């Protein structure tokens, strides 16, 4: 039986801005099992990054308000944890990799100083041991000249090297959960593939659970086990990768899949009309209904609930039965 490591229940987040209250997350339910890679996909602004950052409580308060929900890590609610305990979990138990490897390292310290620092902080070892672990973790992510890298400053490394250093830093403390927020977006395609295969191998070797935030469905197909699709602050569909990508039940992921250009079949490239709604004044009912070709009267009144359509395959749509006979 797979263990449920991380569980996000009914998470609701608001941002207070000058223009009004942004209803960033409305009702997000996710669970992450040990040893799996869960892909979190959706358009820009749908709440993927907010969800992933809220796990480590990285969102500044104010303006952020978490108005409802819980985030359980091994059954303990992270949202109610005192700050010092949270600092042990950050980096130690749950690690995070960011989108921009170029700017995620402290420019005034060498890679070695930063990496050994984190290791000494979380694994309670002295500098010498930390150095040994640092070298090993750099080799693990495919940086073979680890000693040289350790003595360099961030600006002396390439983007791919820096992202590997970030991954090495995240993994050096053997976290149980890795949150990767679009880890490959800023890199070239060839480096992307390498980074993804590193993440995949590390999952297999260490039994780590990974929450992979991305807007790239190709990445999901390549590395994920399960996938959750978000739209405007809701999880609209989640389930096994093959189920969701082969037979999407919700009109939104269907539209997303049809918007991928394919070289084999020559057909007109379709796109989803419109864009992600303004979250200060989101549409009533199902937030996708203004862009949905199948919407009916019920869609602009009632919020669809997430229901289990097939074992392990969840969808939040009033019409999934009608659309998928």
């Amino acid at each position, binding site marked *: 039986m797979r263990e449920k490591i991380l569980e996000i229940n009914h998470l609701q987040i608001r941002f207070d801005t000058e223009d009004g209250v942004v209803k960033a997350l409305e009702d997000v339910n996710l669970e992450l099992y040990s040893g799996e890679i869960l892909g979190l996909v959706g358009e820009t602004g749908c709440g993927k990054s907010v969800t992933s950052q809220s796990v480590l409580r*990285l969102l500044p308060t104010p303006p952020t308000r978490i108005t409802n929900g819980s985030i359980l890590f091994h059954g303990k609610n992270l949202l109610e944890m005192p700050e010092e305990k949270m*600092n042990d979990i*950050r980096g130690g138990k749950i*690690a*995070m990799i*960011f989108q921009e490897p170029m700017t995620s390292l402290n420019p005034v310290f060498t890679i070695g100083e930063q990496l050994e620092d*984190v290791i000494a902080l*979380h694994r309670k070892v002295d500098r010498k041991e930390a150095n040994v672990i640092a070298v090993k973790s750099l080799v693990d992510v495919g940086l073979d000249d680890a000693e040289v890298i350790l*003595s360099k400053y961030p600006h002396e490394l390439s983007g791919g090297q820096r992202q590997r250093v970030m991954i090495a*830093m995240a993994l050096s403390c053997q976290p149980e959960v890795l949150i990767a927020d679009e880890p490959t977006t800023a890199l070239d395609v060839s480096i992307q593939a390498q980074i993804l295969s590193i993440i995949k191998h590390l999952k297999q070797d260490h039994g780590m659970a990974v929450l992979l935030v991305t807007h790239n469905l190709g990445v999901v197909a390549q590395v994920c086990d399960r996938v959750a699709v978000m739209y405007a602050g809701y999880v609209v569909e989640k389930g096994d990768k093959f189920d969701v990508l082969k037979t999407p039940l919700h009109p939104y992921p269907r539209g997303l899949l049809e918007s991928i250009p394919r070289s084999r079949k020559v057909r007109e490239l379709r796109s989803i009309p419109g864009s992600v709604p303004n979250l200060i004044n989101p549409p009533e009912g199902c937030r996708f209904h203004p862009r949905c070709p199948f919407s009916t009267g019920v869609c602009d009144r009632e919020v669809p609930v997430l229901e289990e359509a097939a074992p392990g395959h969840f969808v939040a749509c009033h019409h999934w039965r009608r659309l998928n006979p």
Partner: protein
Amino acid sequence: MKSRLDSVRKIYGRLKKNRLAVVGLWIIIILVITAVFAPLIAPYDPNEQDLLSSLEGPSLAHPMGVDFFGRDVFSRVIWGARVSLTISLVAVAISAVVGTILGSLAGFYGSVLDEVIMRIMDVFLAIPSILLAIAIVAVLGPRTSNLILAVSVSTIPEFSRIARSAVLVEKNKEYIEAARAIGESRLSILFRYALPNSMVPIIVQASLRMATAILSVSGLGFLGLGVQPPTPEWGTDLSLARTYLEIAPHAGIFPGIAIFLSVIGFNFLGDGLNEALNPKLKDR
């Protein structure tokens, strides 16, 4: 370590392109050497009196002449470098450290703490710095320690404003968020991440403030509120020489030149450093 030395060399390389900065640097180097080795360089004891040659003009025996009390001006200018530099350096060091800590705390934590610290700084900024220094020395008495206090208190607000704005810029960068994600505490993020990355404007400011501090110290000396006679100090000596300026201009001109050169030296270096340390030009 090697790479740190490299970056010092790189910064010097960029500094070298600015001629004025090099001039400034050399003036300061000469000034520091003079101050450190004053007893070896000065031909006479700065307080030794030879009343028979009072107000004598420059000669081979006394290259800058003799003042009213029969003391060798050259020796007094050399010893004066020691007094001016020490007081200014200590004062700027204190105000840089205090101002940077206050300003970065204000910028980093924001909200109430920010308001409280910065409004207090605004009060200090509202009073002209030389007036503030005069007031402090007038109340506490003209002792060296009070002089240092006066000069540093009037410079703290400048440093805190600069540190605050630099930290505000750094605070929102992604590596700070990454540091939070690896479990660094807030204080450690401030002192190991935000602050080291905000040092450039503070270093530049320190060099420029040295110039102002030297000017303040001699200004206070000139007004009789600074270093007390017979200790050799440029401003104090200048004030004394003022009485006899018509018959013995050399007793005032040379301490004046010393003040002028050291102020300009630190200003040139500060401007040069500003360019050399500019992160936008870092990798060129």
